[in-house]
């Protein structure tokens, strides 16, 4: 790759933005470090190898964690109670968890077993948990070394049939047509479920349930496609909602490549409580960091509710904040697929130039990050012929500014979930634009005093101003004031707040301890 055309970027402003974002994240991190949640504790049980559901479909991890939460004992960490069950003679974590869930009485912690003894007892099991994640990561790296990924921008498509077996067929078809990344869209309501469904599923509205078994099935299909087409096909799902940490762990052990994972998305767009989200996103990202998964953040969504011209800077603000949170969870820059989108009204004069400005600016501010570039959706009308042109202009920005991950626009957006044909035509169009304009970014220069440069400067300046504002009011208040996506949320409002628990002084969580040492 030669030298790309650049837009002016004041490095001192960028450094100042990062410094402010760090302080914003540190403030929240102090809260995170003092709390846990039912979602976090369930994830830890899963990582210990606890699995299975009862005859009502309730996962064992839910029954166990809920029981100890109701008893007011979760502040010590489910790991502590698991250790006590092991000390009482249970042969492994599965049996111990069953005792926590269904045992005659709740263990009130009388007598014996200090936190340190609990940690020592759990140490070999925690080591096994790490090994399981590491083994999956090594398998992925070995496959990716043997079967190389295609060139960037990686073409990202979605499948959303509701039936995991149909998804597998569609995923292979997409790989055949040239896709590099296949995401299985999740069933619409899943983000609000406080448990992860079990087993293979064939029914789902708006998408397919994320379950561990479904992950296995789709991974198998994309692995086969990788081998067949000689191009590594990446697999994506959603680590968001009330089970974001559990999904992250499942993705880690089932060898997914990417996860939609955002520090604030659930708060804004799913009305999930902010305390819960901050705690859960941290632990999910600790697993993601260890597993070597790339996250996709969701700032692009802001522009679907807020105005894409006036509020463009809020995307950049949020990217700085998401980056700061991700760094605190141990993610490398190369794992941060920060999101942004082509959502400006296409009929606005120079809308294309404004899109170009922001895409280039973000490329420069986050040079190591696999930036995720999202297609137009808000201004799609159902005119599929126009939509193809609209999407082509989007792809032209993608290739010119060398975005890393490009989610392909679908001309049938606003009508239906993409048909086989829609996806094929979108991939064909993108292949054309990427080929025809491959070196455009190296051949041009933006006028230092031109419209693109001025727009980039304006967006960075406004993001800086907003970060100053957010820091002054704290992020808790800023979200309350509608700073992002024009959506307002309160600190104790939203779903899942009851599942947040203050950690006791003698809180035990050796798995998180190991992840934090990674």
């Amino acid at each position: 790759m030669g030298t790309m055309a650049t837009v002016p970027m004041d490095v001192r402003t960028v450094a100042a933005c990062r410094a402010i974002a760090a302080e914003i994240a540190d403030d929240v991190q102090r809260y995170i470090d003092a709390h846990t949640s039912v979602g976090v504790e369930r994830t830890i049980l899963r990582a210990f190898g606890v699995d299975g559901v009862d005859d009502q479909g309730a996962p064992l991890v839910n029954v166990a964690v809920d029981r100890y939460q109701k008893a007011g004992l979760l502040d010590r960490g489910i790991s502590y109670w698991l250790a006590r069950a092991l000390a009482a003679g249970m042969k492994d974590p599965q049996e111990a968890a069953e005792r926590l869930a269904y045992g005659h009485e709740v263990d009130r912690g009388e007598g014996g077993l200090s936190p340190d003894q609990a940690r020592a007892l759990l140490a070999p099991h925690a080591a096994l948990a790490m090994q399981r994640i590491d083994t999956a990561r090594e398998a992925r790296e070995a496959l990716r070394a043997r079967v190389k990924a295609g060139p960037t921008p990686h073409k990202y498509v979605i499948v959303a049939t509701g039936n995991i077996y149909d998804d597998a067929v569609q995923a292979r078809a997409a790989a055949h047509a040239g896709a590099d990344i296949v995401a299985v869209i999740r069933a619409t309501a899943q983000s609000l479920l406080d448990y992860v469904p079990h087993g293979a599923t064939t029914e789902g509205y708006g998408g397919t349930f994320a379950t561990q078994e479904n992950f296995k099935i789709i991974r198998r299909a994309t692995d086969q496609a990788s081998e067949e087409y000689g191009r590594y096909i990446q697999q994506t799902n959603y680590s968001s909602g009330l089970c974001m940490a559990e999904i992250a762990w499942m993705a880690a052990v089932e060898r997914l490549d990417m996860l939609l994972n955002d520090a604030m998305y659930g708060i804004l767009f799913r009305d999930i409580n902010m305390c819960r989200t901050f705690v859960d996103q941290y632990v999910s990202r600790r697993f993601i960091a260890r597993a070597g998964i790339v996250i996709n953040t969701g700032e692009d969504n802001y522009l679907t509710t807020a105005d894409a011209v006036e509020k463009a800077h809020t995307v950049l603000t949020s990217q700085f904040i998401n980056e700061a949170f991700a760094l605190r969870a141990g993610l490398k820059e190369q794992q941060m697929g920060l999101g942004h989108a082509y959502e400006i009204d296409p009929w606005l004069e120079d809308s294309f130039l404004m899109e170009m400005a922001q895409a280039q600016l973000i490329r420069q501010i986050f040079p190591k990050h696999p930036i995720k570039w999202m297609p137009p959706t808000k201004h799609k009308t159902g005119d599929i012929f126009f939509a193809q042109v609209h999407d082509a202009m989007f792809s032209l920005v993608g290739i010119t500014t060398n975005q890393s991950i490009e989610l392909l626009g679908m001309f049938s957006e606003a009508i239906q979930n993409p048909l086989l044909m829609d996806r094929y035509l979108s991939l064909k169009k993108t292949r054309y634009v990427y080929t025809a304009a491959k070196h455009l970014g190296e051949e041009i220069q933006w006028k230092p005093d031109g419209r693109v440069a001025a727009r980039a400067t304006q967006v960075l300046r406004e993001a800086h101003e907003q970060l100053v504002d957010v820091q002054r009011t704290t992020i808790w208040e800023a979200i309350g004031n509608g700073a992002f996506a024009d959506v307002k949320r309160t600190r104790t409002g939203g779903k899942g707040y009851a599942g947040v628990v203050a950690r006791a002084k003698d809180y035990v969580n050796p798995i998180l301890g190991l992840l934090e040492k990674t």
Partner: protein
Amino acid sequence: MHPTPPAKPLRAYGDREGDGMVQMSFVLQLTPGVRAREAAKRFSESHGLREPIVATMELCAEGYTYFVVYGHSKHSVDVSQIDVPEVRTEALTREEIEHRISTRLGRKIIVVGACTGSDAHTVGIDAILNYKGYAGDKGLESYKGFEAYNLGAQVENDQLLARARALDADAILVSQVITQRNCHKENGQALIEMAKKEGVRDDFVMLFGGPRVDHKLALELGFDAGFGPGTKPADVAGYLVEKLCGLEPPLPPASKPTAK
């Protein structure tokens, strides 16, 4: 181009009247080749296309071929036989809407809206209710004469009804974007049935909106009106003003009795 529906049956217009030219694109589970081309032709003919031209035939996935076909459709449509209810409102300006509410009603119109069931796509309800609006037309929240409550995504029908009753709302707006297996119809109908069962159906003007919604469907499901794609907040505002300020919307021309 025609101020009144033409009397003769209409055919699709390509580049001259009566040629019936249409384009269709589709996928067949075949690999490209002579047989596939013939299959596409016959498939098109059975859709009523005369002299179909297979303009494109490409492998789009293993074992699947994508076609673009042009042909003369033999079908026509008799417009005079069409009877479609349409929501027609006088195009009222913002000022006129505000004025009518304050003079004729003398209080704010209270509106509660939500995406119901599993639907998490709030684009539509946000566009109508939130200040920001849609396509430059500000939402109901921006009017002095409206008090708009947007309950957001994935609201259960009973919650929506309970909230509407608690707020003593004038109107309930339901948005349904997800349409897989017709779940939008089921959700909409369930709400109406629940309202009837609780004896509160007539306490509210109930509106249904979404990309796959039209007025006819909304009426069939038991709503007062339906709003499809491209609806602006002012359309909904205008409808509510006419409905609630005692003036029935004028009968749309298409629903007047026609000579048969």
